[in-house]
C-alpha cells in the first residue's frame, strides 16, 4: 500500500497541507479511486490534523463523495424539475428495473452504479441521463436498454 499512501500524500501536499483545502483534497482522492477508502481518510486526518469524525461528517454531508466503491460506469438520471415534468422518474424506474438495483446502489458485478442528480442544467434537452461523461438527450423508456447495452458491449 506504499504506492497508494504516497499518492494520497501527494494530493495533500498539492494544497500545502492546508486544513481549508479538505474538500478539494477529498475530491482528488475520490476522482482517483472512484470512492474514498477509509485508510485514505485516516491519512488525511493525521496529515492535516483534523479529527477523523469531522472528516467523516464532511464526507457524508456532500453527495459527491462515496464511502463505498462505485461501479465502473456511473449512470446518473437527472431528476430536476424540468426533467421531472417531462417524465424523469419513469426513466429512473426503468433503469432500476433493468439493473435490478435501487437508485444510490451498485450492481453486484460492480459494473454500474445508479445515481440521481437534482439538476444538470440541461433542462432544454430533458429528460437527461449521463453515463460517465456521455450526455443523453430526450431519453425515453425505450432508449434505456440501448443506452445500457452500449456500456456492456464495451467490455466484450
Amino acid at each position, binding site marked *: 500500500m506504499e504506492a497508494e499512501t504516497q499518492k494520497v500524500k501527494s494530493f495533500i501536499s498539492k494544497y500545502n497541507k492546508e486544513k481549508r483545502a479538505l474538500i478539494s483534497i477529498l475530491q482528488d482522492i475520490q476522482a482517483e479511486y472512484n470512492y474514498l477508502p477509509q485508510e485514505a481518510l485516516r491519512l488525511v486526518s493525521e496529515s492535516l490534523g483534523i479529527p477523523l469524525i*469531522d472528516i467523516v461528517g464532511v464526507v457524508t454531508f456532500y453527495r459527491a463523495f462515496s464511502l463505498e466503491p462505485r461501479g465502473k460506469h456511473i449512470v446518473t438520471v437527472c431528476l430536476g424539475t424540468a426533467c421531472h415534468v417531462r417524465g424523469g422518474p419513469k426513466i429512473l424506474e426503468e433503469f432500476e428495473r433493468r439493473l435490478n438495483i435501487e437508485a444510490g446502489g451498485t450492481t453486484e458485478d460492480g459494473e454500474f452504479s445508479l445515481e440521481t442528480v437534482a*439538476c444538470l442544467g440541461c433542462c432544454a434537452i430533458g429528460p437527461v441521463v449521463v453515463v460517465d461523461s456521455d450526455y443523453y438527450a430526450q431519453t425515453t423508456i425505450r432508449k434505456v436498454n440501448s443506452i445500457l447495452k452500449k456500456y456492456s458491449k464495451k467490455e466484450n
Partner: protein
Amino acid sequence: MKNTIKINSIKELTKAIGDQIQKRKSEKKSVLTVSAGTCGQARGSLGVIKALKKEIKKENLGDKVKVKISGCHGFCEAEPNIIIHPQDIFYQKVQPQDAEDITSQTILNDKIIDRLLFSDPVSGRAVQNEKKIPFYKKQKRIILGDNALIDPTDINDYFSIGGYNSLIKILSKMTPEDVIETVIKSGLRGRGGAGFPTGKKWEFTRKAKGGIKYIICNADEGDPGAYMDRSLLEGNPHRVLEGMLIGAYAIGAEEGYIYVRDEYPLAVEHISLAISQAEKLGLLGKKILGTNFNFQIHINKGAGAFVCGEETALIASIEGKMGEPRQRPPFPALKGLWRKPTNINNVETWGNIPLIIENGADWFAKIGTKGSKGTKIFSLVGKINNTGLVEVPMGLTLREIIFDVGGGIPEDKEFKAVQTGGPSGGCIPKELLDLPIDFESLTEAGSIMGSGGMIVMDENTCMVDVAKYFLNFLRDESCGKCLSCREGTQRMWEIVTDISEGKGSKGEIEFLTDLAESVKDSSLCGLGQTAANPVLSTIRYFRDEYEAHVKEKKCPAGVCKELIQYLIIEENCTGCLACLKVCPQEAISGELKKVHVLDQSKCIKCGACYEACNFDAIKIE
C-alpha cells in the same frame, strides 16, 4: 491563444483591445458560429464542427470562411444552431451531414437552405434572420447576446467585443467610491434570489473594519431548472472575471473565490482557462496594469449540496466544513469568509457590472420597472415550445414570456401554472398571467424571483405531485441542523405523499398549512424559511386539486400512481403489439391485429405502454 505577452500598462491594454476590435471589424471571411455549450455538445455540435472543418478543407474554402466555437446561444430548442456572420443567417438543429450543403450552397452560392431555417409555429413561415425570430424579438440580450459572438476559450475574442474596457475605465478614471456610487445609482439588485441592492452590499463591505476582505462569486446554481449561470460561465467567462475585478477594486479585496457546482464540468473548464489566460496577460495577479491594484481568483468546486448556494453555507464549504448555514447577524459583509468582511454575489449579478460601468448607471436604470432595474435571464423550460434561456427587461408580463417568447404550450395543451424561484418559490396560475415580472410582484403572488428558473406546467401536471417533488428535494438537501426544517420538510413530505396516494384524511390540508407556516417561521436559513412556499402556493391556487385527492381519492391530472389506471381504448387499438412488447410486467396480452387487454392487477403504472402507443389507444384515468 497566440498572444501571451504580458500587458504592463493601461495604454498597452487599450491598444490590445483596439487591435482586436479592428480585427473583428475588418474580418473578410464568413464566420460560422456554432453553439457548443453543454447542451449543444450533448446534441452533437462537436460533430458538426468537425464536419464543417472537414468540408472547408476539402473544398479549399479556408480563405472565405472559418468556423468559430461559441457557448450557449440561449435558444436551446434549436440546438445545435449556427449563426452565419455577416449574412446574419440562423440555421437550427444542424447535423454533421448538413455541413456539405452549408459550405457548397450558402457559403459558395449565397443560397439559403430552407430546411435548416427556424419555422415560426404561429405563422408557419420560415425565418432567416436571427433577430426576426419570435423567440428573440421581445428579448433584450445585453448579457447573453455576446455568447453568440465569441469563442469563450480565447481572451482575444473577448477583447474584440470591447471586453476589459470597463477595467480600464475604473483604473484610470474612477475611485472605488465612484464605482460603488455608480452601482447604487443603477439600481442593480442581486440576481441570485434575494434581490438585495448590490451597491449597498458593496458599500457595507467596503466600510467594514479590517484590512483583509474577500469577494465571492456564487456559481452554485442549485435550483433545478435554472442554468443561466452555467451558460454565462461556459459562454463568456471573462465577463464574470471583469465584473469581479471591478468589484474587488471597489470593495478593497485582493482575493476572490468562484464557487462552482461540481455538476458543471464544462463551466469549470472554461472559467479555469479564462483565469489562467488573464493571469498570463497580467490582468489578474499583482500590480495589475502597473497600478497598485492586486487581485487573484481561486476556484472552489462544490460537492453536491444545494444548501451551499446559501451565503453562509457556501462560506462554510470554502472553509472545508459541512455546508451548515449559520445565524445572521453577523452578516457576511461584516464577518464572512474566515470571519473577514466578504461580499458574495451571483454570477449574473457580476455579469451585469462591466456593462453598468461602461454604459453608465442611467442607461441601466432606464431598463426595467421602478423597483427592479435592468434585465433578468430566465430559463424557460418544462412544457413549453421554445425552451431556452430568455433575457428580458424586468416588467415584461408572464404571458408575454410564455406565449410570445416561449411560443406557448406544445401539443396545444392548456397552460396550468408556471413555477418560479426553484424549490424556494411557488406556482403561479393562469389568472395571474398578466403579472409584470419583478421582485415585488412575484413575492406578493406567493412565489419569488429566485435565480430565474421558470418551469411551465400544463393540464397533465398534478400540483400535489409538484409539491411532493419539491418537498422530497428539500428534505434531502436540508442540512439537518434545525429541527423545524429537517423534521418539518420530512413530515410535510409524508403528509403530501399520503394525500397523493389517496390516504389523506379530513383536516389534513389545514394541518399541512399550519405545519408549513411553522416551518417558514422557525427555520434558521433561507432554505427552511422558503421550504413551505411550494406547499403554500399550490394549496392557495389549486386547493381543489388537493381536495379531489383527499375527498374523492382522484388525481384530476392523471399523474399520482395510486389513483390512476391505464386503460386500453378498444376503438383505437390496432393490435400492433407495441405496448405488449414494452410492458415490463407482461400485463398486456393480445395477438397481432386483435384488440389488446391490460391486466390491472399486474400493472405497475410505469407508463411504457402509453409512450409506445402510436394510435392514442391508451388513456390514463
